């Protein structure tokens, strides 16, 4: 029998292992997705599809192991995937499902997450022959992009089984990805990226919060916010609708301008923060899926980076031009996003005499329209669920939640730090701002902000 080969962790994974050791709730590093099937399904075929996917996606088989010298490494297990748990709520209610989801949110992977499968599917039978699939993954092996890659692969396998066609190709092992990731550190490219980041942050950024304050412990006269205490990391989650009509208008405008629709939501968020914080210099952090090559896209794994996007431009700029500025800022950040944000902060904080318990991070934004599937034999909507924790005052996601063509602003806000009303005001502003901006792109941001409040 071939001896098992162990691989080092990536920098991301090392950070996650450290975080997991600091907090008593390992599930703060779990990602949850619910897949609501719109079409009827064959249970047997779906279970086969999930099992086959677990076998053919090597990153699903990655497990952590504590070595004899105390270090943590990883390997690809040859064991068969764990069976899917089936829960019969065919005589049950939505409330019972919600209650189960909350319970699952609190459960940990066994054995201190070592030498065990780090994802779990549950299939729930609901009334009327409907089905819901619940997926929890550990951030060690997947980020949101690769989690959706997994769901898409299950979809592709299900379709292939339904049609008697060839299965989709097996994904490559993630080790080359790991090697590329780790080779970056200490390279000339890292040095170049570091120089670029220091140039962007020669001047101090602003802490731009959704309520214009630094939080309950805001220090008068200082421009940065206090980091959340542990108790302030628990979340409430608010979902608010972005109507299909507006989504379609944004998408059409974006297609015409050859921009991603994400830029529009980023500009809306940026404009709101500029207004409430009275600053034209706004920083929003965004997780970026570092997946451009064909290999990166198929190899899965966990390589999302968080990167700050600094958008400093005047409010008299027309909406159309501001979109280009945001897109340009994001493109540049993406080019340099492999650089550890932690290293940038370690450089900035002493320069700007910022105490360790402060931060410039106030809002994260991700745009995930790919969570909705409508092709092949399975029709479903995938919803990323709250995991109960958030490391910043507000994590804003833009995602579908149903099959209507609407999107939703999903606001995971830190209790005791950000108020629900602040998220509601931001959302209302965003809808009005985008509607006006798309219709009148020659209008200045200043004018659009005034009319959107």
């Amino acid at each position, binding site marked *: 029998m071939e001896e098992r080969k162990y691989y080092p962790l990536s920098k991301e994974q090392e950070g996650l292992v450290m975080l997991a050791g600091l907090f008593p709730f390992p599930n703060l590093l779990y990602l949850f997705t619910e897949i609501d099937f719109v079409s009827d399904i064959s249970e047997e075929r779906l279970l086969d599809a999930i099992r086959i996917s677990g076998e053919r996606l090597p990153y699903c088989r990655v497990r952590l192991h504590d070595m004899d010298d105390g270090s943590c490494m990883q390997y690809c297990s040859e064991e068969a995937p764990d069976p899917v748990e089936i829960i019969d709520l065919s005589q049950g209610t939505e409330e019972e499902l919600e209650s189960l989801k909350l319970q699952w949110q609190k459960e940990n992977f066994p054995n201190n997450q070592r030498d065990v499968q780090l994802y779990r599917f549950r299939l729930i039978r609901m009334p009327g022959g409907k089905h819901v699939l619940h997926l929890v993954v550990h951030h060690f092996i997947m980020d949101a992009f690769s989690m959706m890659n997994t769901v898409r692969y299950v979809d592709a396998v299900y379709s292939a089984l339904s049609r008697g066609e060839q299965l989709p190709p097996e994904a490559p092992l993630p080790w080359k990805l790991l090697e590329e990731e780790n080779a970056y550190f200490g390279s000339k490219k890292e040095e*170049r990226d570091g120089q670029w980041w220091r140039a962007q942050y020669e001047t101090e950024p602003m802490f731009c919060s959704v309520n214009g304050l630094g939080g309950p412990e805001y220090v008068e006269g200082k421009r940065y916010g206090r980091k959340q205490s542990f108790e302030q990391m628990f979340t409430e989650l608010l979902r608010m609708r972005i109507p299909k009509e507006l989504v379609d208008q944004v998408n059409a405008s974006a297609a015409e301008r050859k921009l991603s629709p994400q830029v529009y939501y980023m500009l809306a968020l940026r404009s709101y923060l500029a207004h409430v914080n009275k600053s034209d210099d706004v920083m929003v952090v965004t997780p970026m899926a570092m997946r*451009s090559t064909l290999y990166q896209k198929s190899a899965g794994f966990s390589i999302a980076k968080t990167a700050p996007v600094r958008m400093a431009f005047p409010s008299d700029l027309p909406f159309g031009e501001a979109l280009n500025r945001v897109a340009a800022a994001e*493109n540049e950040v*993406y*080019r340099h996003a492999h650089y550890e944000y932690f290293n940038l902060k370690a450089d900035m904080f002493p320069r700007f005499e910022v105490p360790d318990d402060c931060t410039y991070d106030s809002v994260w934004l991700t745009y995930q329209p790919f969570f909705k599937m409508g092709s092949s034999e399975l029709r479903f909507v995938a919803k990323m669920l709250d995991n109960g924790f958030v490391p910043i005052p507000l994590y804003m996601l833009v995602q579908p939640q149903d099959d209507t063509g609407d999107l939703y602003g999903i606001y995971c806000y830190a209790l005791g730090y950000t108020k629900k009303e602040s998220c509601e005001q931001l959302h209302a502003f965003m809808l009005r701002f985008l509607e006006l901006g798309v219709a009148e792109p020659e209008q200045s941001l200043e004018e659009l902000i005034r009319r959107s409040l």
Partner: protein
Amino acid sequence: MYEKVCEILLNYVEEPEGGLTPETRFIDDLAMNSLDIMTMVGDLEDEFDITIETPELRNLFTIRDLVKFLEGKV
């Protein structure tokens, strides 16, 4: 230079029917998005040991444009 650029490009896109030609357009023919292009620029910088500023990319629409640009830089 042309062959190297094509080799790097095929890390990002599947080879289209009819293959790559100097006239192949990154966005219209290969459906590359700006993020794909940004990452590929990093690979080109490493491969040819040059620095490419983002504004320099604005007028590069085809493989021929990119090759000519790189030949001027190297």
